[in-house]
């Protein structure tokens, strides 16, 4: 019941937002609903409910291991959203607020979905609900980005539907009664028809990999993240990609139960390393600091995929990384949003010296950049360290070397762009007589809070979180103990 409430509360909030008459007070619905969601998630996290094995929607160990991170990220972004929408008071925000809340509800459904069809419906719902968020700025560039997002994302999601059908047919062909819950599919195990399982895995990996932004299906990401408001980028990078990642994890468990685990792991490892490489190379070339964040996101999705390929210990590290990456990326997107607003352009050709013009945002942006490139003692350092140790323990020496090489290249790329914008004599593309951007508490505190959480996760990872990740690993690897 509570699992359903996590979906219903935001959706009801979305309905209220759609009917709310006042443009100025409407954004307050975001933190109110976000807070309710965090409280409920936190309560269920501390006191995990019993999960009926045939439930379609439940706060199971995997949802417990990642959904709280998404919920926290949303709350902080929602607090930022109130100030952001005040700054952008010239634009109507009815659709924006309503759909942002709908995205939260659908994300909750997607993370908790234990049924192949329901999972697809929730993911497709998120994809569609995010569309008007992307073109909130209503510029031609924003529509172009939205169009590319729709075509690439739509094709990806269509392929994942085809993959779901194939997995369904694998079960039907193996004598299953058409029960498409993951539990039923896993229990059918080797009874699933092998050719169909492999076809399904390819299609589902391409489909949900597109949503996650794994290379070479990542092409929508730089455009979408580059043109969307910072708050939307933060939620897409920390929440929507996570739902696709949990989808891939749940499906991988079915494939492994069918006896094709090694193939699934090899493809995940290859596609993960390839994503890291592509992202690192593009990071060395891009001149736009918002697109830079998108490539950084592609890189971190690659890291998650590599973690998922390394068995129990790697998966625990990947779940850790979902938290550290989501929160740190949130810091970067929100502070980058501030800088972008003050500077009037996202390109390092037009913007310099933001350390003088927006000193606080620039300081957070630089610190966040170091955090995301795995500088200790921030969270990403520890999750990536844990991941490399899992890889070395598993005998993946070459993969670890490629992994670390890509991280180094990405570090060069990120520092190049970030210091190009922050340092030097101030120069912006903003009109001199335009409204000046003021760094109020409302736009500084949220990214700072996220940065603090990333630091806290690194310095003292709470034992209960480690226990939650271990429980999720046990759910996905029922036969072996991590």
């Amino acid at each position, binding site marked *: 019941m509570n699992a359903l409430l996590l979906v219903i509360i935001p959706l009801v909030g979305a309905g209220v937002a759609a009917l709310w008459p006042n443009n100025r007070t409407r954004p307050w619905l975001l933190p109110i609903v976000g807070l309710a969601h965090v409280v409920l998630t936190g309560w269920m996290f501390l006191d995990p409910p019993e999960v009926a094995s045939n439930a379609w929607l439940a706060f199971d160990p995997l949802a417990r291991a990642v959904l709280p991170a998404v919920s926290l990220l949303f709350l902080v972004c929602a607090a930022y959203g109130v100030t952001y929408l005040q700054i952008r008071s010239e634009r109507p925000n009815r659709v924006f607020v309503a759909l942002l809340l709908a995205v939260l509800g659908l994300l909750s459904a997607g993370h908790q979905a234990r049924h192949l069809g329901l999972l697809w419906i929730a993911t497709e*719902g998120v994809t569609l609900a995010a*569309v008007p968020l992307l073109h909130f700025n209503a510029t*031609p560039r924003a*529509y*172009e980005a939205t169009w590319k997002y729709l075509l690439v994302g739509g094709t990806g999601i269509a392929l994942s539907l085809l993959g779901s059908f194939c997995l369904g047919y694998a079960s039907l062909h193996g004598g299953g009664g058409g029960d498409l819950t993951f539990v039923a599919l896993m229990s059918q195990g080797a009874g699933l028809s092998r050719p169909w399982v492999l076809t399904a895995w390819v299609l589902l990996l391409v489909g949900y990999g597109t949503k996650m932004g794994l290379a070479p299906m990542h092409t929508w990401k730089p*455009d979408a993240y580059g043109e969307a408001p910072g708050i939307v980028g933060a939620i897409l990078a920390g929440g929507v990609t996570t739902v696709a990642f949990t989808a891939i994890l749940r499906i991988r468990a079915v494939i492994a139960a069918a006896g094709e685990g090694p193939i699934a792991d090899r493809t995940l490892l290859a596609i993960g390393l390839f994503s890291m490489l592509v992202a690192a190379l593009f990071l060395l*070339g891009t001149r736009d600091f918002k697109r830079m964040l998108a490539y950084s996101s592609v890189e971190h999705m690659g890291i998650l995929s590599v973690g998922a390929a390394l068995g129990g210990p790697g998966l625990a590290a990947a779940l850790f990384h979902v938290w550290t990456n989501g929160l740190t990326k949130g810091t970067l997107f929100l502070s980058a949003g501030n800088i972008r607003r003050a500077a009037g352009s996202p390109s390092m050709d037009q913007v310099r010296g933001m350390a003088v013009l927006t000193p606080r945002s620039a300081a957070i942006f630089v610190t966040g950049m170091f955090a995301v490139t795995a500088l200790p003692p921030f969270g990403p350092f520890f999750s990536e360290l844990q991941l490399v140790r899992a890889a070395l323990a598993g005998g993946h020496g070459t993969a670890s070397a490629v992994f670390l090489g890509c991280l180094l290249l990405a570090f060069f790329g990120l520092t190049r762009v970030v210091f190009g914008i922050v340092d030097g004599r101030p120069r912006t593309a903003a009109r001199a007589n335009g409204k000046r951007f003021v760094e109020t508490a409302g736009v500084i505190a949220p990214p700072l809070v996220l940065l603090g959480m990333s630091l806290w996760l690194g310095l003292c990872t709470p034992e209960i979180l480690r226990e939650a990740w271990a429980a999720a690993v046990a759910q996905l690897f029922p036969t072996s103990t991590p």
Partner: protein
Amino acid sequence: MNETLNLLIGLAMGLNLLALGSSRLPSLIQAMSFQGMLLGLMPLIMEHEHLDWRLGLIALATIAGKGVVIPTLLRRAMRAANIDREIEPFIGFVPSLLLGAAGTIAAVALSQALPLLPEHAGLLLVPGAIASVLTGFVLLIGRAEAISQVCGYLILENGIYLFGLLLIRSTPLVVESGILLDVTVGVFVIGIIVDRIQRAFDSLDTRKLTALRE
């Protein structure tokens, strides 16, 4: 019953080729709309022994949605945008057709590798589905203009629908209606964006969408 169904699937596959060879937007939309209607009839033929209201509903919704509503919306968008009705392809019509024909042959060959249940053994559903998905891809990649790309996307979705017919007896109604709802909403969202692009760029030629690149 298998013969009738295979005939319909064969017709749908022929419409794929027609769509690939269409040099005018109205005929592309027409081909897609006919294909949608054929698809709507298929569940009725497949399950003619135990027809019930839910099957009727699905068939009706499919025929109305894929065959009437969506094509009407696209035609309206076409007229509103006042675009050149001649399609300008990235991939020419003859190469598109050749790709489509090769895709159809590949689809038949590929489907040999996939085992089917005895009751589906004689059906062309799997090759039909793969061929439509490939046709959709060729149109998505090979056409420059937004509405043609939408048609490609819808043909791709038709292919997935064909495949879904294999599971018609085993999937619960909730799932099916959820999928149907998502697809419908998706088309509406695409429609809205097409409209916005038309206003922002004064054109539906996606070759003008080139501001965002490295």
